[in-house]
């Protein structure tokens, strides 16, 4: 394997204005536009510098534990009696989720830019933990915004962030979840832009974040594409990943984008079901979701008819977000990727099935992707391969799941 895992192709999207087709762009207050320009320039410079790639690659090997393996889910596959299911084990990355890939990449960039104060938002807490970890490693100051609803349901990660030396700032505005944590982080950045690096955790927000986060997560797909061929001698029939903002999904999909026979499947949070309107399935419920502008980017946004952002629901904090990364909106429009959803109930079922049959407790987010594999595998022939991104481990979700299973 090569050292140049961070994949970026300048002929690729986004265009120079940060657009993936009609999605993306930069809808933010003027105050932070110069900071986005500075970030874009510093990122381009870093990507052109082999030393940056070497440093990140070194940390990925010696700190994160990359490459993460691919596991064959033998008992699950045999029980379902169809396609063979393989799991890309991002849960085995240090801190227990794919979020560390981006946190380390942006962290190194922040250090290179001479920024000492780092802010981040977090939903499930995985990006917060990833960022707090990377900042402890790099010796930078770290402040994480987190909605109080998420603080309650992801307690272990709150303790973890504090232990790692980060300040966790509770957000009490709006729905008190990921959306509101991003609002507060953006307000902090507008105020402290000259000293502060905003380490955004998903492939969304104003340009260049959707591109930069994708590039830092593209290590997932780059590794997986080689590994699956080594293990099975073939490319997968489909790649499956959960989609909140969509960073683990775009990280997996990117390497397969030109493999026409590999279907790319994103799984959104169906919450209590589409008919309940309590979900975060931006692509599934076109009555309340349509192209709009939130957090600096044009993408699909769950909103009422007057353009006010809707409250969302998902059992998994990491998918509980009313918009989605602009590149996903573009891939969907091109029909290059297909988006479906799994309900809370289906995700909880998949959470237990994977635990019992494979000895792997998945994050509730990742359990949505597993749920789709469970639906699909029996309909496919035995010689076909499904590649599921197991984006994180479920230890953080035990309280939530115990509470729900007791009910």
């Amino acid at each position: 394997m090569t050292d140049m895992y961070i994949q970026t192709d300048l002929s690729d999207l986004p265009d120079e204005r940060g657009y993936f087709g009609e999605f993306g762009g930069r809808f933010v207050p003027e105050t932070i536009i110069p900071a986005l320009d500075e970030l874009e320039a510093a990122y381009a410079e870093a990507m052109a510098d082999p030393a940056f790639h070497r440093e990140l690659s070194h940390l990925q090997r010696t700190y994160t534990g990359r490459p993460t393996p691919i596991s064959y889910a033998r008992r699950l596959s045999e029980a379902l009696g169809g396609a063979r299911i393989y799991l890309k084990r991002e849960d085995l990355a240090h801190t227990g989720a794919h979020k560390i890939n981006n946190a380390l990449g942006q962290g190194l960039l922040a250090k290179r830019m001479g920024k000492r104060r780092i802010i981040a938002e977090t939903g499930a807490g995985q990006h917060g933990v990833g960022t707090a970890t990377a900042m402890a490693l790099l010796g930078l100051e770290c402040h994480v915004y987190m909605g109080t609803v998420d603080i309650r349901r992801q307690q272990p990660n709150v303790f973890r962030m504090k232990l790692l030396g980060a300040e966790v700032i509770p957000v009490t505005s709006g729905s008190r979840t990921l959306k509101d944590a991003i609002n507060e982080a953006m307000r902090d950045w507008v105020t402290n832009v000259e000293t502060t690096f905003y380490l955004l955790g998903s492939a969304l927000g104003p340009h260049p974040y959707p591109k930069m986060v994708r590039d830092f997560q593209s290590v997932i797909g780059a590794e997986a594409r080689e590994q699956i061929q080594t293990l099975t001698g073939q490319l997968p029939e489909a790649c499956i990943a959960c989609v909140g903002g969509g960073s683990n999904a775009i990280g997996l999909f990117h390497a397969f984008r030109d493999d026409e026979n590999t279907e790319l499947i994103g799984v959104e949070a169906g919450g209590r079901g589409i008919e309940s309107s309590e979900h975060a399935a931006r692509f599934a419920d076109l009555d309340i979701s349509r192209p709009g502008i939130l957090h600096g980017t044009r993408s699909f946004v769950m909103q009422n008819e007057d353009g006010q952002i809707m409250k969302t629901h998902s059992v998994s904090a990491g998918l509980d977000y009313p918009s989605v990364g602009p590149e996903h909106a573009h891939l969907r429009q091109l029909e290059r990727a297909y988006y479906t959803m799994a309900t809370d109930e289906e995700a909880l079922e998949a959470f237990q099935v994977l635990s019992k049959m494979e000895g792997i407790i998945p994050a509730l987010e990742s359990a949505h992707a597993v749920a789709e594999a469970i639906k699909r595998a029996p309909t496919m022939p035995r010689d076909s391969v499904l590649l599921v991104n197991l984006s994180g481990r479920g230890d953080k979700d035990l309280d939530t799941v115990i509470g729900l299973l007791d009910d």
Partner: protein
Amino acid sequence: MTRHQHGTAAIEAMFARAKTEKRAAFLPYFCIGYPDLRESLRAIEAAAALGVDGFEIGMPFSDPIADGPTIQAATQIALDNGTTVRQCLAAVRTLREKGIHQPMLMMGYANPLVAYGADRFVRDARAAGADGLIVPDLPPEEAALFADSCAREGMALIFFLAPTSNDERIALATANATGFIYVVSLTGITGARKDLPIYLTDYIARLRAKTDMPLVLGFGISTPEHARQLRRLTDGFIVASALIRAWERGFDNMHALTGEIFAAIRDN
């Protein structure tokens, strides 16, 4: 007074008039639907009767990233009261029917306007009697959404400059601007502040050297003393959070502050 001019021309006339009085123009901000629809209209009528120069008419949004706690809370109350874009346009029409002649600039985040339909919004706002549009999350590079329709309707499309704006940004904003440049006083979000930034004179001078566009200062301007400091420095200024905070102690208290700020730029 009847309205002889509309849109960008009305805004230009507003600055010309203030200039003859050797003072900055005062544009208070009121959010439609805060504390309720009727009271927000009453506040605008009362300020208009004082003779203030123009208005920033706020349209609420659920996720106002450029706003501090005061405006966040006020606009959330407006949303809880069921305020819609359509209602905000109807409010402007009502105010015009009541004879309010001052320029009115509609201020709202991009998403509700896009949901309404960008072109349709500009057309309907103009028909209702609005003169300009302020969208805090619309930098000049994304202006295409509104630029053509604003030009067609003669509506001013306002862009921002901030202390972080470099020469390139200043050139881009001034090349695209109509009406005036909204000068953000500080690196930060909206909200009342105790003092104006110490660098203000240099900052305004730096912008003056680059453009002849009227400069309207906003963010943090809170007191009659601030207004006095700005009287000869800028072409105009906006007061928002301070009025909402004063309103917490009653309409009369808010109205009194509006009057004191306006008086502060007129006495010599």
